């Protein structure tokens, strides 16, 4: 369960003054559901997800991951979630196994549980061939699998994906999409951000559309299609975002 409660993030920028990257965003994602955060570049997706993952601290408002408050107990909240983005790289001089073990230990797993978990995950993701290979020697696909294993090692109930398929080839992107689906099947709460409509259509149970740091619309894909009278999701998106986009350009 993820609850975002009036999340705000403001930065001071020398040229533009105060920038509201995220402006009063509230939503809820339930277990066994995939929540898609849809928005253009710079809309505030990454900042929102980073606040959920407690990498950034909210200026105002808060969020709770399975009841753990991200402002009051950031370490406890972080233990509830697995965070994956194209920016979360691997340590080049560690092997795939060492990488996963490192994050298992940081998540407080004892050595016997850790060994069991690592063996199980490496078998499930078919990673035993490159277990002892250094991360800088892995192919993109192998790296993605290792990253997935890294997020899964402590079996978190909440999964946060920030544009997980950005810049990946089709086959590697499919692995990620499959993995997100699997998370839902296992009853995890999943939130992911993207600007690819096809991914949203394939995966999401609930969609939130974000622009200029504000959550402009929320609902199932069907509800959004009905509300805006368009079949094509892209058209729906443009209808919602365009007025705000023009306003932003004018500024």
């Amino acid at each position: 369960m993820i609850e975002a409660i009036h999340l705000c993030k403001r930065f001071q920028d020398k040229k533009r003054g105060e920038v509201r990257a995220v402006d009063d965003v509230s939503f809820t994602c339930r277990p066994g559901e995939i929540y898609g955060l849809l928005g253009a570049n710079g809309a505030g997706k990454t900042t929102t997800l980073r606040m959920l993952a407690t990498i950034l601290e909210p200026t105002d408002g808060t969020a709770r991951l399975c009841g753990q408050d991200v402002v009051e107990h950031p370490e406890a909240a972080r233990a509830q979630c697995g965070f994956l983005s194209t920016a979360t790289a691997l340590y080049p001089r560690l092997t795939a196994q060492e990488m996963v073990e490192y994050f298992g230990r940081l998540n407080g797993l004892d050595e016997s549980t850790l060994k069991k978990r690592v063996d199980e995950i490496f078998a499930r993701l078919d990673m035993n061939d490159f277990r002892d290979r250094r991360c800088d020697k892995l192919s993109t696909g192998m790296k993605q699998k290792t990253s997935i294993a890294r997020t899964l090692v402590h079996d978190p109930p909440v999964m946060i994906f920030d544009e997980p398929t950005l810049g990946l080839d089709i086959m590697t992107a499919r692995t990620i999409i499959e993995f997100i689906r699997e998370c839902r099947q296992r009853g995890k709460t999943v939130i992911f951000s993207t600007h690819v409509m096809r991914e949203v259509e394939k995966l999401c149970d609930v969609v939130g559309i974000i622009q200029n740091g504000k959550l402009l619309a929320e609902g199932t894909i069907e509800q959004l299609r009905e509300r805006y009278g368009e079949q094509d999701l892209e058209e729906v998106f443009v209808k919602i975002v365009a007025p705000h986009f023009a306003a932003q350009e004018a500024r």
Partner: protein
Amino acid sequence: MSLRNVGIVYRKELREALRDRRTLITTILVPLLMLPVLTVGFIGVASMVVGKAKEQKAKVMVLGAANAPDAVAQLRQSKKIEVLPEAADWKSQIGEKTIGAAVEFPPDFQSNLGQRPAGTVKIYIYEGELKSGLTAGAVEESLKDYRDTVVVERLAANHLPKELAKPFDMKQENVASAQKVFGAVLGGMIAYLLIFMCLNGGMHPAIDLTAGEKERGTMETILSSPVSRTHLVLGKFLLVLTASLTTAGLLILSLSGWLLAIRLFHLTDGLSDAGQPPLQVVMGPLAVLSVFIMAIPLAVLFSAGLITIALFAKSHKEAQSYIAPLMFLVVIPSVAAMLPGVDLTPKLAIIPLLNVSLLCKELVTGVYHWNYIALIFLSTCLYAAGVLFLAVKMFQRESVLFRS
């Protein structure tokens, strides 16, 4: 606050560091090889220069040689001087360094000698040029001997005792032990090397663990794990400290081993003049240990400082350009400590870096002022704690971690 995670971070960083060739070179190879290479180079060049200077006679041109045949004969007898006949371009020859100096005897020098004022013997030199100065010295020495001979002859001719002209003699004699004489010079050098190595050893790991993480994109990965930022920065700091101390420790070990080798194999004997004590110093175990103990707070100070600065950078390159000026800043106090006459005072004892450098000078000469040692150790610890606190604070700042 459990420190378990600090240990986990430290062990992982250590494992990565041991797999990094650049870290291994700067922390292990450089301190071990630097001294032998430096000293062998220094001794080689020094003995070459000294040997050459010894076998080569200084070239002196004599102007007006006919005015003073006896004086010229005296010059010719000197082992250090080669007398050349007069040439018209003597001035330019001095300027081009083909001759070291020229001596000019005034007219009727010899006939006037001892009877009336014989005038001034002029020695023409190239001011500020080392070889020319040495040549002039040799000429003066030889002519002074000649003057003394003339005086003694004149006294004898008048049946006066020769003590009339020279009632007493003077001689300098060294009573400080060789340990003290060379320790003062070496102590400053050791402090300089120690400070430089402490900084250099920690530099690459500090950059790799902060700006390097940002550059490779692993910063976001590690920040999404439940480890607290304080524990994370402490684990990283400990690794940088380990590298810095390893470098300092290896340097001190290599130094004391090298000094021992110099003594055992008489490597510097050719450098000192006969009759003087050979150029050698021994660092006892106590000196080695105390220099290393002084290096600990210094390494803490540098490690925390390096992390703070490198964390601010977005890339390895950017971090290096921030740290390069730091190198100069750090070198200044240690060079100042090498200047003669700069000694420990209570005020200087609280100036960071300078105090450790000055103390090293004392430690190597075998002097242990325990009050100063305590004061310097504690004040450096205090500075180190301050900078470490700053490093931890910097790690909490989003504007530093996610600077774009």
